């Protein structure tokens, strides 16, 4: 029983050591260390200017050659239900009842092109990248379709072509990277917006513009630029006349860039790789040594017993057995008593058989 008890302590010990080695250390620096590519582009949505006309949806659909929707873009009744991005729509406008105003507010959803995107860090084949121009782009040539990027995105943005059997794609806003790179103006949605609720430009310029708008109309705007610090900063930032929470922009995400949440756990990998073989190798060597000692003890006891038995008559055998046992016991650890006894018994038995086997032969000769 005590053998196993010791083993269990070891098992429990493994748990402890694993806990130390694999521990997700508390995030050392919670805010972003990465300032972002200096000249990157971004977008600014002014929620107070959005009238929910869906022009941006239509423009996006056309620009990205997405399939025609069931209800035409002129039909505003779709605003009555909450929608999200889909594989057929990189952007959708939702209507919100808000605390700040009796009028409903509208906001366009799309990829926020985060400074340090969760989706990019989550992709195990680097199919997603944050370009230094600003857009976060997906690569059709690499994606395996594990959809971990969709799990990771805190804004529920990436979508998947579940109905495409042979080459399903991750679909999301590209900030019209191709169009912009060609020098063909701004992203389609920004060009289509009749109220200039969407502005395209260098992110640094957009931040200045946003600040300026808040400064000149402090009574109108909430004094915060959403995306300045959220999840380490967004490429697409927002200002609003109503609380951000009310237009579906969660304010509880914190300022930590999402890749940081898994970074420390990944940093523990080399620790385990180095530490574990050493610890386990040590335990193994220890166990081997103990085994060798036990074996030696057992063999000595057996040898002694055989010796004694051979020399003495059968009548004395019991006595010898006791003696051998005692000798063995003094050498062996207490818990080995039983094993030794078994070995001795067996040896005795064999010796006896041997003797009785040999006896007639001797007699015959």
């Amino acid at each position, binding site marked *: 029983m005590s053998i196993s008890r010791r083993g269990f302590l070891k098992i429990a010990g493994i748990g402890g050591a694993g806990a130390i080695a694999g521990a997700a250390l508390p995030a050392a620096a919670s805010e972003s260390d990465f300032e972002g590519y200096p000249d990157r582009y971004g977008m600014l949505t002014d929620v107070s200017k959005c009238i929910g006309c869906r022009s941006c949806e239509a423009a996006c659909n056309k620009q990205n050659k997405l399939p025609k929707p069931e209800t035409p873009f002129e039909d505003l009744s779709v605003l009555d239900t909450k929608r999200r991005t889909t594989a057929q729509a990189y952007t959708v406008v939702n209507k919100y009842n808000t605390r700040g105003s009796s009028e409903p507010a509208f906001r366009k959803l799309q990829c926020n092109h985060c400074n340090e995107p969760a989706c990019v860090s989550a*992709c195990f084949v680097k*199919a997603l990248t944050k370009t230094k121009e600003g857009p976060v782009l997906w690569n059709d040539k690499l994606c395996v379709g594990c959809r971990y990027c*969709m799990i990771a995105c805190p804004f529920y943005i990436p979508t998947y072509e579940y109905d495409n059997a042979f080459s399903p794609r991750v679909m999301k806003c590209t900030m019209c990277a191709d169009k912009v790179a060609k020098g063909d103006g701004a992203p389609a949605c920004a060009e289509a917006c009749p109220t200039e609720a969407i502005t395209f430009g260098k992110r640094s310029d957009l931040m200045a513009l946003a600040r300026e708008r808040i400064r000149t109309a402090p009574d109108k705007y909430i004094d915060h630029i959403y995306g300045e610090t959220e999840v380490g900063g967004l490429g697409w930032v927002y200002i609003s006349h109503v609380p951000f929470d009310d237009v579906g922009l969660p304010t509880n995400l914190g300022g930590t860039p999402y890749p940081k949440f*898994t970074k420390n756990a*990944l940093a*523990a990998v080399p620790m385990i790789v180095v530490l574990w073989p050493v610890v386990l190798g040590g335990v193994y060597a220890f166990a081997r040594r103990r085994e060798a000692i036990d074996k030696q003890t057992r063999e000595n006891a057996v040898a002694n017993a055989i010796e004694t038995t051979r020399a003495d008559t059968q009548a004395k055998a019991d006595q010898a057995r006791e003696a051998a046992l005692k000798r063995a016991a003094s050498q062996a650890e207490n818990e080995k008593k039983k094993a030794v006894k078994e070995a001795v018994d067996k040896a005795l038995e064999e010796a006896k058989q041997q003797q009785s086997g040999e006896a007639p032969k001797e007699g015959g000769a």
Partner: protein
Amino acid sequence: MDNAKPKLFTPFNVITGLILLVGIPICLYRFMGGLGAVTNLDNNNPFGLWIAFDVLTGVALAAGGYTIGTIVYIFGMKEYHPVVRPAILTAFLGYFLVGVGLAFDVGRPWRMPYPFFMSQGFTSVMFEVAACVALYLTVLFLEIAPVALEWLRMKALRNILVKATIGLTIFGVVLSTLHQSSLGSMFLIVPNKIHPLWYSTFLPIYFFVSSMIAGLSMVIFESSLSHKAFKNIIDAEPHPFDHDKIVMGLGKAAAIVMFGYFGIKVIGVAHGNHWHMLATPYGLWFLVEMVGFVLVPCFLYALGVRAGNVKLVKFTSFLAVFGVVLNRFNVCLVAFNWELPMSERYFPSFMEFMVSLTLVTAGLVAFKWIVTRMPVLTEHPEFRESH
């Protein structure tokens, strides 16, 4: 196994036959029609049953391989040797099915080698999981290969592999530590999507420690079942071993690990100061998991071992295994997206269930096929170990 022809219409054959009959066409349909044709997955719920069960649960339940390997080869506790081979065979088949399950789940399975040969996303926990699972499957293959080699009487190759046992075991434990825990780390990136009672920075540790519970309990559970199902094979063994003693030892170990696991889970709740959430519906569900399927089996294990009640320990192993399964489902599905309205939540489709069931059934058939032919539950007379 006599010279009489084996019966074809045994209950086992009929049930597995029916499952495969329904399941295999659905499996094919998955690849012809795409994920959307058979699953209830959507953009809010990209992970479903196949990740929660086939991958997360599969990996946890296959933890018996590294757990028993450590006990026998590294701690040198030879008395557990008789359960090593079935445990490693279970692990090998388990991980193989995890790979197959992943092939069903990812959108373009033919690209599964990409993370190794095309483009490495080192910042992704998924990369670590993929790399470790692939490597570990290889290790398990090498560990179980001697069984087939003995069967084929390929002595030389078999002896080389047996010599590598210790190295393979240590490598296997390193890989298991890494990926068992990183399956938990995978969810570290969604602090905003998982209910705070299940989300914790300790997730990797929780997953690793609970994998030991799953490993120990699965070996009890599975070896007890094998003992019943393959009685004729085991009884034919000239050197019978004391199965009950093994069960008791493993039960005791499991009780201790579970107690520790319960402790660190409590620390997690205290750390986040989430006590008040215990009185919510999610909190009650959390208590069901923690008390009903951790504390109670922990206590029952201890009780069974103390009272020498083998039956109780065997029954408890089922509870404990179920508890780990429940935990994986809770993290991946139940507590995930907990703030979304019911209409945007996920529930697996019938066809998803069937695919998972088909894979498990295929695994059972393979297990049966192997143990009735190869020296898994018994020792090969020509390769009997001297100990």
